[in-house]
């Protein structure tokens, strides 16, 4: 299944229309719907990964989706290490993806 947003017209649940919102992700505008988490907005825009691991820069996005694994963390409005899957998106949120390179160890 694609990570894209399921079209409302094909949704048998027949949800009410949602208000649109947009957030900024690394300076680019991404559109979403009110009620989505930041991870929901990102997944809805077709994006699966937005963080890189420290050890080898491997891509990371939603792994558990329920707040346990901390794989999906992003910076939101200046606050680091926010779980994208737990933080509801608000119109105008400034989201910056995180990548912390491994430190050089001093001997």
């Amino acid at each position, binding site marked *: 299944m694609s990570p894209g947003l399921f079209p409302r017209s094909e949704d048998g649940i027949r949800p009410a229309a949602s208000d649109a919102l947009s957030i900024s992700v690394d300076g680019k505008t991404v559109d979403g719907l009110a009620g989505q988490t930041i991870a929901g907005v990102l997944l809805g825009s077709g994006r699966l990964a937005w963080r890189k691991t420290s050890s080898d820069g491997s891509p990371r996005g939603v792994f558990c989706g329920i707040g346990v694994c*901390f794989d999906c963390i992003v910076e939101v409005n200046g606050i680091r*290490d926010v779980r994208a899957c737990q933080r509801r998106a608000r119109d105008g949120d400034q989201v910056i993806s995180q990548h912390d390179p491994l430190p050089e*160890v001093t001997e």
Partner: protein
Amino acid sequence: MTSDVVIVGAGIVGAACARLLARSGLRVLVLDQGAGAGGTSSHGEGNILVSDKGPGAELALAQHASSLWPGTADELSNELGANFPSIEFDRKGGLVVATTDTGAAPLIAFAETQREVGVDARMLDIAEARELEPSISDTITAAIFYPEDAQVQPVIATEALLASARLAGADVRTGIRVTGAVRNGAGDIVGVRTDAGDISAAAVLVAAGPWSGEVSRSLGAAVPILPRRGMVLVTTRMTHRIFHKVYDGDYVGAVSSSDADLQTSSVVESTASGTVLIGSSRQQVGFDDRLQVRVLQELAAKALRLFPFLAEASLMRSYGGFRPYMPDHLPVIGRDHRVEGLWHASGHEGAGIGLSLATAEIIAAQMTGTKPALDAAPFRLDRPTLARYLAEDVPA
């Protein structure tokens, strides 16, 4: 089929022994009641430390083991190829600090005794310590740097040793529980009874970590090894601000203590992924693995004495496991003087990851009749400090 050696326990000690024994040409069978690295080996931090040991037999074993790890890491990597994950051997170094005025002098004196036996223990002034660890508390009163302290990813290291053992011909069978000994007419152990049938073997080596007490009892030759519980807290990911293993000097006291009640002492380090591990506790509560908030509270509070910035950190989870505790704080390595055919490699408390390679060297040398690189006499089961614990256990 008869094995030359049946090893009970597929943790890191059993794995290291299996590898060396198989490489010296013996037919080796490893049994484990659970999975490989399913017990203590996967429930700690993968420490290879010299810093926490005072002069004596265990430090000598740790120093020898420390010298073996880089070569073994290279051998495993060459032997298993690029598709096998790295064991992540990392000589990251340990920084031991005192956090009180009264703690400074004993820490400095302890390091002096270690230097006399060849440990690289460098006394730092506070400014030098803060160069190594810029976020450390400005209230520390003494600091010793141990460049030899290292770690591995213990689960990968165990699996790598097992894989290497298999390549040398060893067989590893998991999910099989040893329930007793097979004995001959003379009372010698000539195999094990398991829930999957009897298995004959010229020698049986117990390397079951904290379960070695139970296993050895079931074999009719009990060894006084008890489980001692240890807990570790894990923070969420953050920017790397801790660069070595950093611990409070009173860790040494907690590890070498025999007190059954809760002992905690700060050991703080960060992982490559950005989480921070906060240990450590010691508790004798049998195999009770229930979460105890009191333990976690103490760990968290003491960590702040080292790194005040952790007050802002969020905790993601905690984990813990059982360390094989010996009443005289030394592992048991070698043959059982009471029963022919029985051997032990157990009781390494929280140091088994590091000590595994040196332990395996002793076992392999003794089983193949060569001389170990290290004096193994202090680890014999018939040492005087264990006599009173063995007195009640007459072999069946």
